[in-house]
């Protein structure tokens, strides 16, 4: 009789190890005679099913009520760009403020009138668009509390007005130029001083080229690229340059549309002689890849003293140029940009920055501003980088202007082991120019207003209805002291502070 099972197959079946068999019902595991390992494995005691086991260590037994969080905002966030627009919004008028009677406007006469020292001069309404175009107004300045924008005419303003007037009155082709770095403590009015310069430039129909914040070029917010394959260590910022062209073209539309291209521009085949400089600038705005060559072409046109042979019919004498840069300290350090080897790029390796810093040096053969004009670069004292080399360089520039010989012992030198940035020292190393009428680089420190100027400034607050006090000499003098010796921003803070009689 044959079995249903094949005995050979059965013998090949392996016996299952005991441990993976289901545990016996009894608690004590059976032990086998010969096998010791598997049965000795204890049956693992399972953790008890979750049940209350009393309070844990140092945990309160109180009933915990889950707090509701903040009610979630149901509304959508504002569309992109709106918050920034609100932050950057500049309000230049306050209809609630009183209109100041007899307020004079800034014009050719008032900007040099020393009788108006200490009074606030209004900016002419047509000029406000130009000033907005060059971004001369800052949000931190209190434009929004007065009926119309105006600036106080202080000693430095009048001096600058006289210089501008003098440069404008000189014959074309033989105009002098002015180079200044404006320093001063916080809220001393450096940016407003630049604004006043720009307003005077527009008054005198100069060409105003402005960099409203030097910081924008170095903090890594605009695109950058190597200038060319031949010069891989120089970088260009096309978007920023296009913006500069746009600012310049918009603000100086009236002047630029009357000037014609009278030089050869080999790099720009589309630029034809005889087109206006405004159109030239628009090339760079529309085609950002060409922004830098267009800016160079525009600058060559503006600094031309004569036409290329053959193009004389397009040439008219160029007006003086005003160049302003605010917060120039940001250009004296490494930027947030990196080279292809991931090394930080120094600000002076950007052609944009280099162009404006080179203007500080005396021109080779001819003046840096051959048609005259002014370079006014202001430092910033709030949120500015602290650069030792720049501080020393400013002292050196002031000493050079004062006539101190750089080899003499009185010449300020950096501390021996301080390792200053030599590029910064070199950038401001501007010796006495050989070309006559070219100004030498000077450092002008803006301090506080005098007591008389401060009184006039505070009277303006009172006449605008912001300050309900009787302005006396004593009162103004007290505010002058509290404002740290007439620091104009601090005076504004004191003037606008609402006082309620108890």
């Amino acid at each position, binding site marked *: 009789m044959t079995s249903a099972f094949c005995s050979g197959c059965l013998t090949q079946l392996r016996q299952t190890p005991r441990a993976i068999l289901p545990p016996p019902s009894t608690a004590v595991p059976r032990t086998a005679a010969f096998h010791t390992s598997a049965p000795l494995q204890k049956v693992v005691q399972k953790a008890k099913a979750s049940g209350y086991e009393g309070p844990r260590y140092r945990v309160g037994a109180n009933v915990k009520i889950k707090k509701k969080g903040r009610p979630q905002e149901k509304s959508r966030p504002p569309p992109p760009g709106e918050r920034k627009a609100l932050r950057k919004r500049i309000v230049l008028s306050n209809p609630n403020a009183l209109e100041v009677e007899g307020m004079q406007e800034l014009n050719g006469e008032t900007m040099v009138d020393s009788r108006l020292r200490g009074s606030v001069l209004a900016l002419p309404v047509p000029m406000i668009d130009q000033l907005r175009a060059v971004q001369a107004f800052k949000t931190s300045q209190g434009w929004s509390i007065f009926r119309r924008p105006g600036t106080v005419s202080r000693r430095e303003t009048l001096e600058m007005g006289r210089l501008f007037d003098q440069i404008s009155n000189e014959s074309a082709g033989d105009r002098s130029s002015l180079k200044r770095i404006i320093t001063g403590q916080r809220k001393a009015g450096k940016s407003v001083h630049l604004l006043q310069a720009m307003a005077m430039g527009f008054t005198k129909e100069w060409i105003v080229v402005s960099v409203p914040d030097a910081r924008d070029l170095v903090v890594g917010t605009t695109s950058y690229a190597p200038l060319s394959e031949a010069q891989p260590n120089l970088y260009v910022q096309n978007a920023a340059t296009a913006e500069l062209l746009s600012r310049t073209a918009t603000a100086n539309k009236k002047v630029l549309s009357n000037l014609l291209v009278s030089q050869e521009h080999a790099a720009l085949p589309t630029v034809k002689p005889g087109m206006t400089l405004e159109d030239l600038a628009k090339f760079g705005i529309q085609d950002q890849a060409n922004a830098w060559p267009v800016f160079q072409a525009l600058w060559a046109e503006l600094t031309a003293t004569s036409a290329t042979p053959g193009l004389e019919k397009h040439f008219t004498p160029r007006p003086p140029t005003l160049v302003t840069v605010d917060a120039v300290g940001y250009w004296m350090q490494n930027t947030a940009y990196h080279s292809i080897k991931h090394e930080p790029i120094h600000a002076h390796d950007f052609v944009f920055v280099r162009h404006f810093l080179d203007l500080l040096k005396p021109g080779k053969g001819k003046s840096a501003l051959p048609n005259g004009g002014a370079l006014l670069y202001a430092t910033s004292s709030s949120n500015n980088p602290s650069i030792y080399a720049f501080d020393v360089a400013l002292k050196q520039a002031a000493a050079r202007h004062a006539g101190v010989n750089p080899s003499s012992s009185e010449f300020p030198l950096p501390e021996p082991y301080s390792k200053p940035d030599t590029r910064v020292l070199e950038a401001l190393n501007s010796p006495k120019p050989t070309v006559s009428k070219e100004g030498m680089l000077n450092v002008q420190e803006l301090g506080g207003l005098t007591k008389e100027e401060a009184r006039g400034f505070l009277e303006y607050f009172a006449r605008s209805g912001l300050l309900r006090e009787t302005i006396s000499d*004593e009162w103004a003098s007290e505010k002058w002291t509290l404002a740290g010796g007439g620091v104009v921003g601090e005076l504004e803070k004191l003037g606008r502070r609402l006082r309620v009689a108890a």
Partner: protein
Amino acid sequence: MQSVRSATYLRAALAQRSAAPSYLAAGPTMSLKQQTPRRYATEATPALTAAPEIDFDRMLQQRSARVVPASPSYFTGSPRFFDHLLNLESLLAKYAALPTVSANDSPRMAWLKLPAFRDLVGERIPSKKYRGLLKVLNRLNRIDPAIRPQEVRLALKEFLRPGNPYAAQSTTTSVDELGRARGKGKRKESSAVVSLVEGDGEVLVNGKSLVEAFPRVHDRESATWALRFSNRLDKYNVWATVRGGGTTGQAEAIALALGRALMVHEPALKPILRKAGVITVDPRRVERKKPGRVKARKAPTWVKR
């Protein structure tokens, strides 16, 4: 031997105190000579002699029949105090006719405080009695210092605190040769020194301008408060050095120092400056942290278990 030594000590002490008021006349005491010196046993002892006869007549002549206290105030309970008081009162009676000066012009004296006086006399003096004594002292002190008798001077000196607490006032109370007045002030952890010169209202704090030193307007106002309140902000220049503490403390330390410096220039401003609150010193400091507390007084968070 010990008893002999203590007896010797006592005798010496008694001899010393003969000058000081003694309250009880010294009773008859044994003299040292009456004690037999120590001898060797082999020595021949001299023959013992009887004591001399007591001469009662002489004894009664010397001493009264009952013991009389030396001080008349012995039975008051606090005899030393009354001795002092009677002494001062007799001085006052003696010199009552001498010319006096007003209390403000009399030299400032730091009299002993009550506990120290109690220690001096070794008696429990109630404060009211001591106040009475002080009244007499102050009246004696009003005698014109130019003609004050030496006797009074010495008597008053006995009641002065050791050291002279009022001698430490060495601050210059006048403007120096460069026209500077100096004042010091403290508040919280800050201490300020101010030099005040006549000028046109410039203020420098640690070499910095007021704005740089105090960004907050309130601090600037409180630092210059003495000058503002007296309408002299445009008449003086201030050079302040301030160390320690925070902004508020520094500003208020300057205010105090400035008030003091201003009083050197114009002492008549004192009532105005007092009204401005720059004379009164605020002595408060941070209260120390206590064990078992989170801060000086803050209790730890309550935990049920």
